[in-house]
């Protein structure tokens, strides 16, 4: 593996529920949104982050992008503990421009009162200190790199197509020459035909600019195609990590297996094996001794409700959090 660019060390996020009233004492319940997550992103690597809705992906992404403070643990960017800087102050941090993000819905993430030019220029003005001609040149360069015709820069987001808006979002994110780009389902809001061109663009940019990606997606086929490694999350914890190909070919954790079986196939054969039933366990103050997947897991035994399986190493740089994974 290449040198680590981003390192997460036992990162956790817990949100208190209910108000801390003046007269309320004792235990305040917490939602454990992200619990003890550790992984690294190498230089030039693409990590796929997958998991169902509510598994803590978004919270984790908000912590990595430094929009949210961590409750526990540390985040290192190039050996600097960026999680030590409070999220509220990170806007002025030197590393702000190095961690950027492409949002899920480009329409929603561009200020409706900004033209495409203003949207791409905003971080460059603020973080790069560019003005006038230098700014214009940099914005146009970023736009061209993203396949956005320069003529469209004076348009407002509602005058652009979905694909064009996505390109504006990507151009804005790469403008400050980031080292780590977080892609939050960048193609979810697009037509299938446009999805392909945007994914190709992202591949190309990565090669040209030497970026590292964290790719959050529901679309497992895309993750398999683009990512070097995957991180599978369930209820705030990592259940499996490893090289994408290996994980997809022979998933070690029963949750990963059911995810992969749920991928729709063209042959119309439905894999009912491993289909999940029941509801996920509550994320509110979960017991530290019960496997998070217990109750939905087709393999669950008595051991699973008395001992939380730790994330342990498997052959081939893989890890899984299941007693039965080998």
């Amino acid at each position, binding site marked *: 593996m290449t040198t680590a660019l981003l390192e997460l060390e036992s990162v956790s996020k817990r949100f208190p529920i209910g108000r801390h009233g003046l007269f309320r004492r004792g235990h305040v319940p917490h939602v454990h949104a992200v619990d003890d997550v550790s992984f690294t992103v190498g230089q030039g690597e693409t990590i796929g982050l997958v998991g169902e809705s509510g598994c803590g992906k978004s919270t984790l992404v908000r912590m990595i*992008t430094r*929009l949210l403070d961590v409750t526990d643990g540390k985040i290192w960017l190039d050996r600097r503990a960026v999680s030590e800087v409070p999220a*509220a102050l990170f*806007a*002025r941090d030197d590393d*702000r*421009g190095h*961690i*950027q*993000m492409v*949002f*899920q*819905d480009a329409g*929603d*993430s*561009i*200020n*409706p*009162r*900004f033209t495409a*030019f203003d*949207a791409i220029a*905003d*971080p460059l003005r*603020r*973080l790069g200190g560019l003005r006038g001609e230098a700014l214009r040149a940099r914005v146009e360069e970023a736009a*061209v790199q993203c*396949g*956005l*015709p320069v*003529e*469209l*820069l*004076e*348009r*407002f987001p*509602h*005058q652009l*197509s979905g*694909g*064009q808006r996505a390109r504006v979002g990507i151009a*804005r*994110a790469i403008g400050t020459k980031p080292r780590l780009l977080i892609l939050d389902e960048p193609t979810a809001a697009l037509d299938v035909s446009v999805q392909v*061109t945007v994914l*190709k*663009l992202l591949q*190309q940019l990565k090669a040209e600019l030497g970026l590292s990606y964290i790719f959050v997606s529901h679309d497992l086929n895309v993750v398999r195609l683009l990512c070097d490694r995957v991180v599978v999350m369930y209820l705030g914890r990592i259940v499996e990590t490893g090289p994408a190909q290996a994980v997809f070919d022979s998933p070690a954790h029963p949750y990963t297996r059911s995810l992969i079986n749920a991928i729709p196939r063209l042959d119309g054969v439905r894999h009912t094996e491993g289909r999940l039933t029941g509801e996920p366990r509550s994320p509110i103050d979960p017991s530290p001794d019960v496997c998070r997947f217990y109750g939905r897991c087709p393999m669950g035994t008595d051991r699973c409700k008395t001992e939380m399986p730790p994330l342990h190493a498997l052959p081939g740089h893989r890890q899984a959090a299941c007693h039965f994974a080998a």
Partner: protein
Amino acid sequence: MSATTEPAAAVAAPSPVVRQKSSTWRHIRYVLSENPVTLFAAVLFLCFAAMAIFGPAVAPYDPLASDTIRALEGPSRAHWFGTDQLGRDILSRVIVAARIDLGIAVASVALVFAAGGLAGLAAGFFGGWVDAVVGRIADTIMAFPLFVLAMGIVAALGNTIPNIVLATAIINFPLYARVARAETITRREAGFVDAARLSGHRDGVLLLTQVLPNIMPIMVVQMSLTMGYAILNAAGLSFIGLGVRPPTAEWGIMVAEGASFIVSGEWWIALFPGATLMLAVFCFNLLGDGLRDIVDPRRRT
């Protein structure tokens, strides 16, 4: 991947600054031509603005000069709106009064926009105790009958124009705070707010530079609507003797003075200032609708 995968604009833009400016004017012209009612309101507004600016210069007579020989004369060629009980020309007084009535309205709306708008913005964005404090202040004001509250404020603080402005602003505060708060809440979680944070903007700054411009359309409509209400409020205070004092020309006072003459048949003393007042309120209400179309970029084609 090349630029040709998606349709490019056929015409290259000239200088972007020029283009933006002309497109704004084109858009305003388009909205006005599409909507004759807005055009009417805009023309009316320009008339009122001209009256307020040039009032004393265009008034045919001195609004304060009494001429008791010609008192209580009906509309005629010499006095289009007639004369009042002291023989003062009503047309001149109506024109000159525009400055004071509109002035009070503009000042109070500007004040309440700054105070109520910012308070609502902060309440909606930060929530928590800020929201609680702003919400309780608004509730407290709303608990009073608003006109009575305005009367009380003016009576307590004294019968001066700054106090009328302040009272009018205070009774409109809940309206502005609540509209701004509601509009901010719907945008607080928007992607562009996070995008602005990633662009290096701190919360306080992005609230003013990114969220505020987005709620401006609705705030401008609100301003235009309350403008009419503020004129009514100022005139109402004067009508009951708590506002501007005679012999100053002011629409509310003139209606009050003319009211006692209606029974004896001198209808013009109250009618003309009253009708002007009504027209002014009407104008600002209509303008509100038109302004929304102009300031909302999504209506641009």
